């Protein structure tokens, strides 16, 4: 009795692990090359919000407030500059509109061949099914 149960258990586990069909692969979440910059940006905005609040409740002097605010804005500007740089790099063939809130026009994805790993696909993909890098450009 115990032997069949044990065998069934072992076979079931091994089959579960080894039989992976293509449709079982979880659809990859699009990788956002700006994610960490957005994180940074969010952190700075929060710092600014906190700063404003602490100034309002009197924990900071006017001078401290102005100085720190200026520092934060300078950091924010640096992050925004970095965003623009990355965007320019990403979209070097296609020009994208500059202001983030404006909806950019959808450019035609060019590749059937992944520029980073060279895998070929039958239809156009935003991200490579092999390596997950964006199909438009190699840089991620």
């Amino acid at each position, binding site marked *: 009795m115990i032997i069949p149960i044990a065998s069934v258990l072992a076979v079931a586990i091994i089959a579960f692990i080894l039989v992976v069909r293509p449709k079982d692969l979880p659809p990859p979440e699009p990788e956002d090359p700006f994610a960490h910059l957005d994180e940074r940006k969010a952190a700075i905005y929060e710092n600014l919000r906190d700063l404003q609040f602490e100034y309002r409740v009197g924990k900071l002097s006017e001078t401290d407030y102005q100085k720190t605010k200026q520092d934060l804005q*300078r950091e*924010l500007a640096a992050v925004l500059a970095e965003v623009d740089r990355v965007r320019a790099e990403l979209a070097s063939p296609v020009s994208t509109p500059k202001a983030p809130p404006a909806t950019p026009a959808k450019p035609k994805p060019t590749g059937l061949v992944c520029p980073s790993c060279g895998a070929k696909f039958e239809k156009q993909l935003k991200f490579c099914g092999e390596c997950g890098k964006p199909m438009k450009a190699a840089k991620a």
Partner: protein
Amino acid sequence: MNTDKHRSDSRFLFCSIRVYPCSSVAKFLVLVLAFAGLALAQTASEKPNTDVRRVGQRLACKCGCKDSVATCAMLECGFSKPAKERIARMQAAGFSDQQIIDAFVRDYGPGIYLAQPSAFGWTVPYVAAALGLIGIWLFLKKYRKPKPLLELGPVAIDDPALDKYKDQIEKDLANLE
């Protein structure tokens, strides 16, 4: 199959919990008093006192706790109670501390002797804390930004290259709260 090991395990578990290495001054007092109470039936000279405690602290209790004879918290401990009585008897008979400890070492082996914790024990944590302070000092020195030279102005983004972001920042700031 090592049932012996299992047995000792669970016994140990019990011991470590029952025989809490307790003490602290107040608690210690309790213990001394506890033993005083327990020794009421016996002669006055057998009451644990500071002399007994002094010697007892240098002897490991073999009941399974990791305490000394003086600090074992077990009320009817099969080891520390008779040991304390023996210390008291020997002291009454005029033996010196060292002689009493030697007698115990002779009977129970050198493992019973507990040395005085050296100054090394409590200096190391403070030395570590001091090293940490030096670490903080080095950190502050390394990451301390040099005083900015520019004058203060209201929202002046000095770098012209970054100036173009000013509008966007202002807009986003207005959205805050």
